[in-house]
């Protein structure tokens, strides 16, 4: 179960409707697909951790899942080379 913290008014999973704040019977893999597709969606793990945070900066056991979706994760533009300080 993941808590839906996204901004869709209704999230339908397996024919059942859920709203923000609801616990949704969805796998982390499928939740990752939704997060990857749109910034509308976010989920919170049972431990209260944002799923995207977990996937992008979480524990080593998360690394396989993170690497699977990393290429398309929402991310900032790559920073330029550090400026030379005076």
């Amino acid at each position, binding site marked *: 179960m993941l808590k839906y913290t996204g*901004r869709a008014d209704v999230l339908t999973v397996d024919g059942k409707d859920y709203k923000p704040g609801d616990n949704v019977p969805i796998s982390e893999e499928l939740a990752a697909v939704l997060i990857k597709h*749109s910034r*509308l969606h976010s989920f919170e793990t049972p431990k209260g951790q944002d799923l995207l945070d977990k996937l992008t900066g979480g524990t080593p056991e998360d690394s396989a899942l993170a690497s699977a979706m990393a290429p398309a994760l929402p991310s900032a533009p790559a920073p*330029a080379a550090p400026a030379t300080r005076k």
Partner: protein
Amino acid sequence: MPDQSKVLVTRDLIFYYKVSASGNALPADTVEWGTAWSTWTDGGYTQGGLGFNAEISRGEVRMDQSLDPVARPATGRTVTMTANLGEFDLASLVTATGQGSVSTTAPSSGVRGHTDWTMGQTVADNYYSVAFDILHQGDDEAVRVAGWHTQPTGAQQWTFGPENAALTPFVVSLFPDPNGSGRVATIRDIIEAAA
């Protein structure tokens, strides 16, 4: 003396937003530029820079005995933040319009899902906190700009074509934040740590 290091020109721009609420705040100074802001949504690619515009209009009180106005009372204030969102994502559309409802049907094994954005007959008043995280190349530290209680006010249009990206115009007007003592905007210039 002119100081080239104080000139701010950069591609290192990140656009963030979240629903306006009590407790919204800029991240701690320990959060370096480029590190994702917890609880804020990264708006992704933008085009044409990020804009912050503040204008206070003033009237004039003139008297016979004075060539110049004797007072210029404030008659209005307009503060806006602007961006062109470069990633076509319904999240951008929802934020930029502040309107409509969204429903998502998750995909399942072998079955596609979809998200619908539906503009209804009522006009909603939705408020967001909007922020820019900008890397100042001069000192390699962030400059952070936030509007705490903003409402989408811009005209929306999308052009889909072969030569240019379909941009989502994003224009919000800032209001005093009822969740934060009437604050309107904050610009924070981070100072590098002492040796």
